[in-house]
């Protein structure tokens, strides 16, 4: 009898197989590493969130209600750096990807379990540098580190923060590498590419971006360091450099990074919509290939961040056209998700509400992107609150809704327990409403001309700012509710059973929480993804 068989019969699972802090810090189990990430990114989310709270409080008054301009600048820099690099980028890949990729492809672990643990340590090391930067005085360059401000003029812990991002990038690269190899080489017999859950397609596309894009931002950071510490003239024209070069390097990564944040959510939503409609996905291959298309085009649109930088009219035209092109695969996804509901058997547990919230907010975020892809309107909207609203609709309305939806969906699998569905549905609603109240007024602020990153602002913008801050307080409550009931459920939640949602997919065919080695016997797949029409799961 194998160890897994013993575990399955005795109720031993990955959580209780071993005890003690060492069993967590030295684990190579992808599921435990996923939980290590879950705890770490939640910690960083709370710090980044606290900065946002202070910013919204401050902006209640035109002269600033709370902070010195210098402190305010540090707040938005910290908010951006932490939320982008230490929460959103690792969120779904490192937590759900780690937990689910091996289980969804029917493997016992990722291809390189020790490299996987190494990625977490690298992430933590990068996080420590960033925390040090915050505690030792902060950074006020914004998360974009534009030169020559960051290399020559900014005071503060620029190098510590930049080093933190540089280091944590390697964690991202290694995780991507691990996923790509696992998806290529470790799929269960019978699990062909077009039988893969769309979450795997999304993770695959995301991993490609992580592997190809992250080194470029790492290079940019090294160059910033060379100039800041050794005065090598790269970006600062006073030293013979070119300040715009930095923007090319930075956005070559950081635009695709937006898709690192949103593609995984799109994968999650495909899983959720099918499960709660009890239907196969509408247009499987169109959704799969639109993920790939988005990943490819994402590398060719960075110049739309530089329409007002003085780049040539022709460059502007090309980048504008390519940015518009991203709208097509995004629209295809939204239409296919919507069509999946058609003639479904639709139920509304919490994960489904998050998924529907995702579709709504992502639709609005995507459509407002057209204003910014369009050259003539972008000239006016660039660097205003319109941009802030747009990318929060994508990265918070989209990516974070998807993350929370996924967390609610797979929480019973991860912990073996159910959370109170009523509270969860309530929080989904609060977040959806709070989010719109926070960010919709910012679209209007942007068109009226309020620039971003302003610690003080002309009084005519006050009404909309107060509305936004009021909405943010609702949004903040919405985020805290799940934190409470998730923790509660770990001890007191009802036992979930292997498949509380009646979902398809290999991860649901093993006990919750799963045994250390995931499956008693490795599965053989004989059906398509989302075969909700088939009565019995055909896994031998």
């Amino acid at each position, binding site marked *: 009898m194998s160890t897994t068989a013993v575990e399955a019969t005795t109720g031993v699972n990955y959580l209780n197989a071993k005890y003690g802090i060492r069993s967590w810090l030295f684990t190579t189990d992808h599921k435990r590493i996923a939980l290590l990430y879950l705890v770490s990114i939640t910690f960083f989310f709370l710090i980044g969130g606290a900065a946002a709270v202070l910013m919204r409080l401050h902006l209640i008054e035109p002269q600033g209600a709370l902070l010195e301009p210098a402190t305010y600048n540090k707040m938005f820099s910290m908010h951006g750096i932490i939320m982008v690099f230490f929460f959103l980028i690792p969120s779904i890949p490192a937590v759900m990807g780690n937990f689910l990729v091996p289980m969804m492809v029917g493997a016992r672990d990722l291809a390189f379990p020790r490299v996987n643990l190494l990625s977490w340590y690298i992430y933590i090391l990068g996080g420590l540098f960033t925390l040090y930067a915050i505690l030792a005085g902060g950074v006020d360059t914004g998360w974009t580190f534009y030169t020559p401000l960051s290399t020559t003029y900014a005071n503060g812990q620029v190098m510590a923060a930049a080093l933190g991002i540089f280091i944590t990038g390697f964690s991202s690269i290694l995780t991507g590498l691990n996923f790509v190899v696992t998806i290529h080489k470790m799929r269960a017999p019978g699990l062909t590419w077009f039988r893969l859950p769309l979450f795997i397609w999304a993770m695959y596309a995301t991993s490609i971006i992580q592997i190809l894009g992250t080194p470029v931002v790492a290079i940019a950071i090294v160059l910033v360091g060379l100039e800041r510490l050794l005065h090598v003239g790269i970006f600062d024209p006073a030293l013979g450099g070119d300040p715009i070069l930095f923007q090319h390097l930075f956005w070559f990564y950081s635009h695709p990074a937006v898709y690192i944040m949103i593609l995984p959510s799109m994968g999650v939503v495909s899983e959720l919509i099918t499960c709660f409609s009890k239907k196969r996905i509408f247009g499987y291959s169109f959704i799969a290939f639109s993920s790939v298309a988005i990943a490819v085009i994402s590398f060719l649109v960075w110049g739309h961040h530089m329409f007002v930088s*003085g780049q040539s009219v022709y460059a502007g035209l090309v980048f504008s056209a390519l940015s518009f092109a991203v709208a097509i695969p995004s*629209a295809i996804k939204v239409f296919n998700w919507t069509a999946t509901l058609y003639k479904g*058997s639709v139920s509304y547990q919490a994960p489904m509400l998050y998924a529907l919230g995702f579709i709504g907010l992502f639709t609005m975020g995507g459509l407002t992107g057209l204003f910014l892809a369009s050259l*003539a309107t972008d000239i006016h909207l660039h*660097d205003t609150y319109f941009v802030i609203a747009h990318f929060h609709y994508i990265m918070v309305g989209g990516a974070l809704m998807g993350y929370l939806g996924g967390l609610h969906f797979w929480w019973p699998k991860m912990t073996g327990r159910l959370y109170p569905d009523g509270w969860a549905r309530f929080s989904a609603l609060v977040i959806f409403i709070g989010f719109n109240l926070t960010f919709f007024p910012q679209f209007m602020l942007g068109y009226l001309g309020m620039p971003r990153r302003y610690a*003080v602002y002309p009084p005519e913008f006050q009404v909309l700012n107060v509305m936004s801050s009021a909405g943010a307080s609702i949004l903040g409550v919405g985020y805290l509710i799940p934190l409470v009931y998730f923790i509660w459920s770990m001890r007191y939640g009802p036992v979930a059973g292997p498949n509380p949602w009646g979902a398809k997919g290999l991860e649901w065919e093993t006990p919750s929480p799963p045994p250390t080695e995931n499956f008693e016997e490795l599965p053989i797949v004989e059906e398509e993804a989302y075969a909700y*029409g088939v009565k019995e799961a055909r896994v031998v």
Partner: protein
Amino acid sequence: MWFGFPIRPEQASTIAEGIDHLYYFLTAMDLFFTAIIFLTIFYFAIRYRRRSKAETAEQIEGSLPLEVAWTVIPLVLVVVTFVWSSSLFIRNSRPPTAATEVFVIGKQWMWQLQHPEGVREINELHVPVGRPIKLTMTSEDVIHDFFVPAFRVKKDVVPGRYTSLWFQATKTGSYHLFCGQYCGVNHALMRGEVVVMEPQDYERWLSGSKKAETMPAAGARLYEQYACITCHGTGKGPAFNDLYGSQVKLQDGKTVLADEEYLRESILFPSAKIVAGYDPIMPTFKGQLTEEQILQLLAYIKSLGATERKAAQE
């Protein structure tokens, strides 16, 4: 205004209305698609809600005609938007040839503006209504951004190079000038006003203001003071007459357009491009001239005649 609530900034330049029309079109398209998606989801959500546990859904794999439809329709719409927006953008980026040139220098955290007549302003720019104004801008330190919402114009102000934008005000009044690009501690305080005046008021304001020399005159003085004249006035170096906007033949056989960028480089890094037929004997003036002085020299060179092919092709 919409129920007494402003939805757009004032339209105070010739291009503002065109931008707003495109904005309204995009907003309408947005609302239309958002409504379609939301209503369809709500309809399906109610119509196909699960009524019993035993219920099974009808399995549908997809539909090629639908996929084609919702690929092609958005594609057509974005192509239309792209063409509309881009043609507007191209038109808006060409300054009229008769534009009055004002020089802008951004520095942490103030705007310095110089009229060709020699009037200098800080954080305030006075312009006459109805006359095209072209700004030639540079920065002394970090990247700033010249943003006037009421004119719908914005352009980064980049150290080490010149960027430009133009506008023609249509309405008198005072309008916000913002720094749009985050530039350090007091970024939010790097604000000013553009004051648009009736032409006769403007003339009065201009004649009442304290004037330094005109820009070309100041440049001419520097031309002698820094001894540019000893070579460029004697044939040892290339002459400046009709230089601006002309094609210059270089030693390595290439030709280059004598625009602001080229002239600036030739002053600061003279050995970067050697004009054919001259020796590379010019010393650098890097660190000796301020941004303002370089602009004055450029104004002087431009005043010595510009070739027909205008360099001002941004």
